[in-house]
């Protein structure tokens, strides 16, 4: 059966509204996706009927909440095909997941003179934690260059990789260019040198099937809110062999086994890394989002998304003076562009007035913008609830921009 986008749009209450008197066209999905009613209802149901702290109480509500919370962990771990659900740590999102690894893995395994490899197209969240770590440890940050199309230079990467490499941290999909990186190739090569690989999966996981066992990545970081779940919750998948050896980076309740004033023994995985009361409602909402995606079938949504993405790319390419930044062969869902010499801020201000939500600016990837010598881009990002009519609206809006500024 083909994908019924009109039906699916009904699941998202927010989409059915007017902005400045025009129907909302939401094309800022790479920043955050909208939430289906089932996610909103799950959170509301939790607070109105189940709210209780997890892992501690012997009373009914606490046990129910704990069970739901731990079932969510199993379900999400299963969604990415992790071998064991204790390899799935709940965090506040991709940023915290990366920071957790930078602190806990970094402190333990990175030493003076090591190098950490990232790429030119990383989000600031996958640059700055490593910069801080390198400064602390006197280690070196090596950056894989990219070509004009926005693809990493694999040969350059090979040359950077050696026995002193402590970690590779790279994005699955570039948030600013849409490039899909050849992470399987990177991981396989890295493992020849016994180097672990962290994948920033924030932009990947909602668009295609991610199988951490098949990828054999050592860490995979992702956020619920970019995959139709709530904000403020996300996950870190990590291989047990590393997580076991890493020390907690947050201390408090839940992460301990026994505390005396002389000595504290830490709890086992995954609780060792989950100090304090977790975002239970968020985790249950996250779980509901995963179930929603499973029900839609990610094979169907990605096929439909590919169709929309191709339609949008062709439509935008036909606009005179429009330049797409990033034309990688492997690319999904994100189109970054500039219209003639018009500043992205100017264009974005006008596009907003036509009821269309796009992102403008450097997309938290300043080094990447410097690479292209541009102040920023206009970014349209698509998911399965977007339509061809919405793409047409964007094209019309760009014509308005051109008329106003050119």
């Amino acid at each position: 059966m083909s994908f019924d986008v009109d039906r699916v749009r009904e699941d998202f209450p927010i989409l059915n509204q007017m902005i400045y008197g025009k129907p909302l066209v939401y094309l800022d999905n790479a920043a955050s996706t909208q939430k289906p009613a089932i996610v909103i209802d799950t959170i509301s149901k939790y607070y109105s009927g189940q709210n209780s702290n997890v892992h501690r109480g012997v009373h009914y509500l606490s046990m129910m909440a704990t069970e739901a919370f731990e079932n969510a962990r199993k379900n999400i771990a299963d969604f990415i095909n992790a071998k064991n659900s204790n390899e799935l740590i709940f965090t506040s999102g991709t940023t915290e997941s990366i920071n957790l690894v930078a602190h806990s893995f970094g402190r333990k395994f990175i030493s003076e003179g090591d190098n950490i490899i990232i790429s030119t197209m990383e989000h600031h969240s996958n640059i700055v934690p490593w910069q801080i770590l390198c400064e602390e440890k006197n280690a070196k940050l090596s950056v894989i260059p990219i070509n004009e199309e926005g693809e990493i230079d694999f040969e350059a990467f090979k040359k950077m990789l050696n026995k002193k490499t402590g970690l590779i941290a790279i994005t699955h999909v570039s948030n600013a260019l849409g490039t899909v990186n050849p992470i399987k190739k990177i991981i396989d090569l890295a493992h020849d040198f016994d180097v672990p690989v962290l994948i920033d999966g924030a932009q990947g996981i909602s668009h295609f099937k991610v199988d951490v066992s098949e990828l054999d990545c050592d860490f995979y970081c992702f956020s619920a809110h970019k995959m139709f779940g709530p904000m403020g919750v996300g996950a870190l998948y990590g291989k047990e062999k590393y997580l076991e050896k890493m020390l907690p980076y947050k201390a408090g309740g839940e992460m301990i086994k026994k505390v005396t004033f002389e000595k504290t023994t830490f709890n086992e995985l995954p609780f060792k890394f989950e100090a304090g009361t977790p975002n239970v409602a968020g985790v249950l909402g996250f779980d509901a989002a995963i179930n929603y995606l499973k029900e839609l079938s990610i094979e169907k949504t990605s096929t439909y998304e590919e169709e929309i993405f191709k339609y949008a790319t062709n439509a935008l390419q036909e606009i005179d003076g429009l330049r797409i930044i990033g034309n990688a062969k492997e690319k999904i869902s994100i189109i970054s562009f500039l219209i003639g010499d018009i500043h992205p801020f100017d264009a974005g201000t006008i596009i907003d007035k036509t009821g269309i939500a796009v992102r403008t600016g450097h997309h938290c990837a300043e080094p990447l913008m410097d690479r292209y010598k541009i102040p920023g881009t206009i970014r349209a990002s698509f998911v399965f609830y977007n339509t061809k009519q919405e793409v047409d609206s964007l094209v019309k809006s760009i014509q308005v921009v051109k008329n106003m500024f050119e």
Partner: protein
Amino acid sequence: MEIKEIENQIVEEFDNFDDWMDKYTYLIEMGKSLPLIENKYKIDNNLISGCQSKVWLHASYENGKVIFTADSDAIITKGIINLLIRIFSHQAPDEIINAELNFIDEIGLKEHLSPTRSNGLLSMIKQMKLYALVFKTKMQNK
């Protein structure tokens, strides 16, 4: 003209526009007639931090009045800063420091006022008031 009078004048000008497009077309026009900063002042030191468009602002002090010039790489930003310059330039430091600027709300540009809105309208106003304060302090210490 006093600050309040100029504000009223701007509000009246914007009252002529029924829709957003005319309003922004006018802002773009205003952007083109911005009193431009001299090239020698278009330096990083004179940049107002804002994440999307760059704004350079320069202030000088002549006969008890502050004179502002500016530039930006985005034209709508230039239009907005031109409005501010119309209001603040050639005014006494005290007038600038105490101005409340109600016009932004009245002409429907309030959305540009949020602290995170990256054209940094708030930062521009803050920087202009800061210059006024510096000139005032300098004069008092003379």
